[in-house]
């Protein structure tokens, strides 16, 4: 109780902002410059994790910037006013004993450092120098461009990525760059410091960012440090997502099939994708999508029984990715090569029946919901991962969505799931792709039946 009063007193200064709903031991403030700060108190191990996430990523990229949010993320670790070259930057991470990384996705770029709890202030200062005062030199970019392109080439050495990439082009059409964080080779290899500054000025603003401090920390102290270090970060006078709006994705015009030959694909893989719901327009369906995907992962489901139990495939996964701008619904199947046709035929047969009233039982629905709750217990097990989980929601859903997720999920009914399937899958255009090597393509001739 004493602790609660102290916290309320500490947070009183920001009471003019509407507080989002948050889980226990999560605390929120918004600084005057618009920077949201969340502190997650968790004393499991004597570590602190800090993360800054920015509403940037593929969805902000037109063709001329394709892949540059990602290159920018790499340049964050290069040089800044306090650590003017990467050798000094890396040396500082070593002094802090930091475990660190950054990621670039469709709707978020995030940077995170984990270190001992006593290094919190030093860590926050370190992050501040990197995010607010970066230095972009042509010579540094010359060295980093092949590094980022090398990450791309590693992905291109994997048949699963080659299939995924081709799928993406067809699912998102003219706006593919808005869903392709890895980008375009030519754009990456011709990027300039000036382009980095454009990204920085457009998106790296306190009113477009969130700072999360989690782990073995004291909330009042963490908020005070955040305000002291980040309070003078100058905001823009505009909301970048209003000034530079994300264009709306056009629906898939018509069902599209393709077969890609590749010598590195030692066994065939099949993907199918639909454009699904998003949290701006149909957040209820995003939760129904998660429940349905979980139902299909159950061993007892008709889907798994038809494909795995019958020995037609070694993987048969169905997923939905929660996004603010059209989340994809995907099927990924690894067939047994000798049963390729049978497997594909069965996939189509199952998809045709997904919307049937008896496609899954009440018991499976209940089991799926209970399973999702247990998955959440597991996700919450690692304190240093809590920041990234929160920032994903901050960018692609909302903190209220995150907090209310399971109470909303409890209310999902069979009718909700059928509505989701009917609205986004049954009878809707989709893209289907297969990657296969030449020998298997010649032997099994999927082109005879894997088509619209």
């Amino acid at each position, binding site marked *: 109780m004493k602790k609660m009063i102290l916290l309320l007193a500490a947070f009183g200064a920001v009471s003019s902002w509407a507080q989002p709903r948050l889980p226990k031991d999560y605390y929120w403030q918004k600084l005057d410059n618009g920077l949201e700060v969340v502190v997650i108190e968790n004393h*499991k*191990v*004597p*570590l602190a994790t800090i993360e800054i996430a920015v509403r940037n990523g593929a969805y902000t990229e037109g063709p001329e910037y394709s892949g540059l949010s990602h290159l920018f993320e790499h340049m964050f670790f290069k040089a800044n006013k306090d650590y003017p070259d*990467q*050798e000094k930057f*890396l040396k500082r991470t*070593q*002094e802090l*004993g*930091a*475990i660190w990384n950054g990621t670039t996705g469709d709707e978020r770029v995030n940077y995170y450092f*984990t*270190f*001992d709890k006593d290094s919190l202030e030093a860590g926050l200062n370190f992050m501040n120098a990197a995010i607010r005062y970066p230095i972009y030199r042509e010579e540094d970019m*010359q*060295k*980093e*461009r*092949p*590094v*980022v392109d*090398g*990450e*791309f*080439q*590693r992905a*291109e*050495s*994997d*048949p*699963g990525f080659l299939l995924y990439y081709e799928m993406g082009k067809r699912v998102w059409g003219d706006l593919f760059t808005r869903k392709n964080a890895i980008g375009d080779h030519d754009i990456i290899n011709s990027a300039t410091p000036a382009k980095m500054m454009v990204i920085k000025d457009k998106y790296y603003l306190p009113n477009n960012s969130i700072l999360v401090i989690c782990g073995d920390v004291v909330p009042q102290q963490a908020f005070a440090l955040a305000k002291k270090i980040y309070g003078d970060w100058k905001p823009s006078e505009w909301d970048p997502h209003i000034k530079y709006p994300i264009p709306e994705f056009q629906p898939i015009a018509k069902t599209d099939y393709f077969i890609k030959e*590749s*010598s*590195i*694909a*030692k*066994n065939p893989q099949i993907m199918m994708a639909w454009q699904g719901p998003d949290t701006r327009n149909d957040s209820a369906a995003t939760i129904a999508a998660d429940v349905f995907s979980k139902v299909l992962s*159950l*061993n*007892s489901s008709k889907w798994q*029984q038809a494909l795995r*139990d019958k*020995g037609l495939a*070694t993987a048969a996964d169905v997923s939905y990715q929660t996004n603010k701008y059209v989340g994809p619904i995907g099927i990924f199947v*690894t067939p*047994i*090569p000798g049963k390729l046709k049978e497997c594909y035929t069965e996939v189509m047969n199952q998809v045709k029946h997904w919307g049937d009233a008896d496609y899954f039982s009440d018991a499976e629905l209940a*089991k799926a919901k*209970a*399973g999702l709750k*247990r*998955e959440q*217990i*597991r996700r919450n*097990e*690692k*304190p*240093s991962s809590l920041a990234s989980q929160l920032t994903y929601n901050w960018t692609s859903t909302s903190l209220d969505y995150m907090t209310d997720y399971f109470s909303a999920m409890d209310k999902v009914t069979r009718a909700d799931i059928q509505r989701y399937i009917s609205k986004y899958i049954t009878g809707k255009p989709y893209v289907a792709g297969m990657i296969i090597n030449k020998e298997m393509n010649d032997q099994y001739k999927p082109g005879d039946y894997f088509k619209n």
Partner: protein
Amino acid sequence: MKNIIFFFLLLSATANAQENKPYEMMVNGVKVIVVPSGNEIVQIDMVIKGGVQNYTADKAGIEKLAMTALTECGTMKRSKNDFKNALDEVDAKMYAYTGRDAAHVQLNCIKGDFETAWPLYAEALTAPKFDAKEFARIKEEALNALREEESNPDAALRKMAMQTAFKGLDYAKSPNGTVETIKALTPAATKAYLQSTLTRSRIFIVVVGDIAKEDLQKKMTAFTANLPQGKPFLLKRTAYTPKAHSFVAQKKDVATNYIMGFSGAPDPTSKDYYPATLASGMFYDKAFLEVRTNNGLSYAPAAYISGGLTPFSTMYVTTKEPDKYIAVARNMVDNLKKNGFPADDVKNTKNTYANYQYYNNETNQSLAGMVASAELNQGAWRKAFTLKEDLAPITPADVNRVFNKYISNFTWVYQGDTSKVNQKLFIQKETPPLPAKDTKAF
């Protein structure tokens, strides 16, 4: 009445107390290591020692199929589907991993579900059925997994490296088997293999979670009583020291070139192990700086130690410029051998490793893995908790001595565009000169 009930509850809690520090107990001759976690998860890891030492090359894959069959081929009480549905009922995960040093059979569940999940785990291990129809299915899956392994560039490279470096040794055997060895396996032979290795003489068990000691002891006693004692078993440790540099290339149509090199490393039980661990961490940092930062040659340069029963050091990279890479890498090694690691770096790396220790303690699964690894490779599970203390007395001189002692010749393998690589630069005795600045390649 209320007081009496309270008294009984108290008594019960005292008799079945929850320990709060890691401990071990011997149950029917089996070591059970228990780590209380203070959270809602329970992780079990039963380790069958031996790995590739347990079978001949013509039987490679047998342990993997035996482990897969535990959850995929039914039990004497339930069909495969009934068994898997029961696990799904509480979203319990039962995994089997087959490595070169051991097989691991793991259970992960929510603490409140342990009473449901544990009997299923025990049933799979003590009464597997090896149903013939299901066995045929998992054989097909194992063959598909081999194709997937070849499709994955990192997995394929590592397999090639292991087979090249350890030719004639146990480590050359792939736990996943080959097309020929998998096809030849029968349910009866695989079941017989399981019965010969899943014995009290070969296993130990790690439990990470808050299970009352007496409860756990009771469950473990009943479980291990159903396992045969088996023959005494002694793990074999093998040293790996390449006599000269070597290089093998394979043409592959991948978008960049994949390179891996193996050199020697100290046995995890030796006094050189902790200095080598520090050297490995600093060597990784140095590779990042020289290969990635200063020369822009790769996204993913790496260096690390594999501290198993046949320990070895690894250098790894993916690059479009293999010749430039090897010049930079070999000059980096020479420089470190000549000038040593800075004392400051040794101090900082100790701090980083201490943080990693806590970081890896965050999940029960990771913690169980660390405990199992320490017990298997060092014969001392408590080492999983003493990294900071074990590293504290290590001096820069220790690190430099060990680096010089073990990092010598490398067995290199390469997959990618073979026309882009000059193998002489990898195997010649003299270190190639560093390329001039701003040249793209030699």
